[in-house]
């Protein structure tokens, strides 16, 4: 077991640390997918659940459709922007956590050793 301490540290400061960075990227992508960020950005001003149309060529019908679609676009924009903001907050939190993990990762073994010594010595 003692002989494997060296491989542990080799992994911790090698592949392990790289994996933390990789997982950070994967987490960001996953959050982005869950909140459909690319789709919402592309359809930010699209009407909420499709274009409203009224059959008939009258000016009245066209004006009504124009108005309803404008309202629908506003609703769509509002919902999407709220979700995008939520996604942005979560992405930010994930990013902060990811950066924290990347920075703290190499310090953890030293932290454990330091706390152990402090606990023994007092």
């Amino acid at each position, binding site marked *: 077991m003692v002989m494997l301490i060296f491989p542990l540290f080799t992994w911790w400061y090698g592949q392990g640390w790289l994996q933390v960075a990789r997982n950070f990227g994967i987490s960001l992508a996953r959050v982005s997918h869950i909140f459909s960020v690319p789709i919402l950005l592309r359809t930010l001003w699209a009407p909420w659940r499709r274009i409203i149309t009224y059959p008939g060529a009258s000016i009245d019908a066209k004006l009504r459709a124009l108005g309803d679609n404008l309202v629908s676009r506003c609703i769509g924009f509002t919902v999407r922007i709220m979700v995008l903001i939520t996604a942005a907050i979560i992405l930010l939190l994930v990013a902060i956590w990811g950066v924290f993990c990347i920075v703290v990762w190499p310090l*953890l073994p030293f932290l454990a050793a330091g706390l152990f010594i402090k606990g023994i010595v007092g």
Partner: protein
Amino acid sequence: MNQSSTIDLTSLRARKARLAKRIGKTGYEVLVVLVIAFCILGVTTYYFEMTRLPFLSVAAALFCFIWALWYKRDLAVLAPSGTSMTDRMSGEVLARLRPNSALTPRATWQALRTHWQVLFLTNHFLFDGTIIENMLSEQESDMDAVWAEAERLSVTSPKGLVEPGYVAAALLKTSPMVSQYLTQIKLSKDDVDAMAGWLERVLEAMNAEKPYFGGIGRDWANGFTPRLNQFGYNISLHIEQQGGHFGWLTESAGVAALKGAFAQGASTVALIGEPGVGKTSHVNALAQLLLQEKNDRNLEHRQIVALNPSAILSAARHPGELEDIVMTLLSEASHAGNILLFLDEAQLFFRSGPGSFDMTQILLPVLQSRSIQMVVAMTPHDYQWLRANNPGFANLLTPVMLQEPPEHDVLRILEDAGLGMEHSHKVLVSYEAIREAYRLSGRYMQDLAYPGKAIQLLEQSLSHSVHNGIIVPESVQQAIEQSQGVKVGTASQAEVDTLLNLEDKIHERMINQSQAVKVVASALRRARAGVANPRRPIGSFLFLGPTGVGKTELAKAVAATYFNAESNMIRLDMSEYQRPEDVQRLLSNGSDESRSLIMAVRQQPFSVVLLDEIEKAHPNILNLMLQLLDEGQLTDTGGRPVSFKDCIVIATSNAGANTIRERVSRGESMESFQNELTDELIDNGQFKPELLNRFDEIVLFRPLTPEELGQVVILMLQGINKTLAQQNIKVELTPAAVQKVVSVGYDPRLGARPMRRALQRSVEDGIAGRILRGETRPGDTVVLDEADLA
């Protein structure tokens, strides 16, 4: 240090693997629990203002956390770390091999045999691991070949590792004794390779990343579809919820062709294929592909909705309402912007009838405007019908033909289906059962295509599992026997007795004609023992002889004895097929509502096909018989083949009857003039030599002697007594009475048929009068003498 030429069990990688095994899943969970426990301890001791314990607790928690992470992300995974054998060997193999003991094939098998991958192999092969172990070598030098083979098998391994299953497969393939054992149980090294491939697909499925389907906002720019939700089934939604399991089918040529047709601008694709070829599966795979991949703009995030015709029909209270519903559905699909409609079994939407309605007139302007994307699935027959009856509509469809997949792909699909069945029914589907399902469905299920028919047969085998849920080849054989009425398994003892005494069984219902009976019985025994040519009918015979001597009776006896019922006989009077256009009648596939030989054999593929008076058929029909007898199949008017390979074909003819009567009356044996008779028939133009040549046997029937006619009377009397048994009355004839019936009923030109009429007049009429007059009561035995006969 134990080192074979290719693997180092003292390397760091091997030591890490052994450590991982020692820690194990349980050790990891203990570490996680300890992390939590120490954290709680640290917080608690800090709260109670203890000086050192909080630091020690957190240190211990961090220590366990580091070890847990190392186990989870490195030791348990142990990814390939190079190109050498040791660097690519799975940790699960390295952990189980002992560095301090001899590394032999037998020791390797012993170390690995309880691993789930090795159990996967042995269970599906129905092997006993101990038997295999005893066959393996104990020479260390033999391991070089094992590692080389394992490395070859693992080239396409999902994680790039040499897994325990590959090592086990390599042990099976490289051992000479195991190879011999495989041959004895009708397996080969190719089967071991196939099993390794199956394992690889299981590993791929286990390691596959969960696909992303677009997230919560995917559909927010698309319209609502309440009516489609009511009358349709959203295939894409179902796949999203289930996780998508169409795996390699999403990469198949069929799905690529479907997607390519839409990508090139087609609005409606006709997916054409025989029943069972997988049209619905391909559409489901397309649905998965459209959800998870980056697609062209006109396909991006499309959802496939299958319309339910029965739901639509049941909702419509009158015809006008039906049109309204359909228009609403189409309008919704068009306005939603992300719907691809799927019309499965398209004939339900293109023809009116029970459970279907014709919506071609409604669809026509929709197809012309290209406002909706649609897939319509249909058989080639239905497509041809549509082209013939509605060419304007058919021209708007972009056809994509689905062919039967090759054997390799069908077996892959069956293996996946087998795993599904194992999961849902808690059974084990053996490797050989899968192969047997492929083989038997190919031979006996002509109406469906692969892979559907093989999957159907495998599912039917579930009810014939053995030993607490194992599907073996015999289960598949029993399933096909039950569903198709054919005998394919090893003959039971009762059946063996019947086959070996077939002549006696047949003679229970017909008199003499021993040569004919012997010839036919021999053909049946050859077929049942698996010796006959499987690509031709079970047997084909030409019965020549005068009328009324037992030709048809022998055919009926064969149907009753071999196919279990006299009704398993398809009888055609070839004198009704004397015109050239009668060929169409014979080969009709039923689309013109007529009944044909093709349809009869399709419904009853295990039958005696009796072609009476074959010499009277039109020469074009006789030419068809050449193909039937040679290849065991005919093609119907729709282009679909029908197999006659499980039929016994018997043609009868009175041609040469006079010659037979004359020569027999001179005391000659039939064998002595058979060749002359055949030559005579050819010279007279009654039969072509190529037709006579294709029959397995030409069997001559001789006229019955008066003694034989007497036996016929006794047989016919048994039939009358069977009827009278319901009234508990029995009739017996004295020898003189029998002679009277023979003398009254016998006509050398008409054979034994007049005996039936004679018995009816002289016996049945008399008994009927006695019963009605009350002279004969239940329980009586009536003995009729010559004087008593009318």
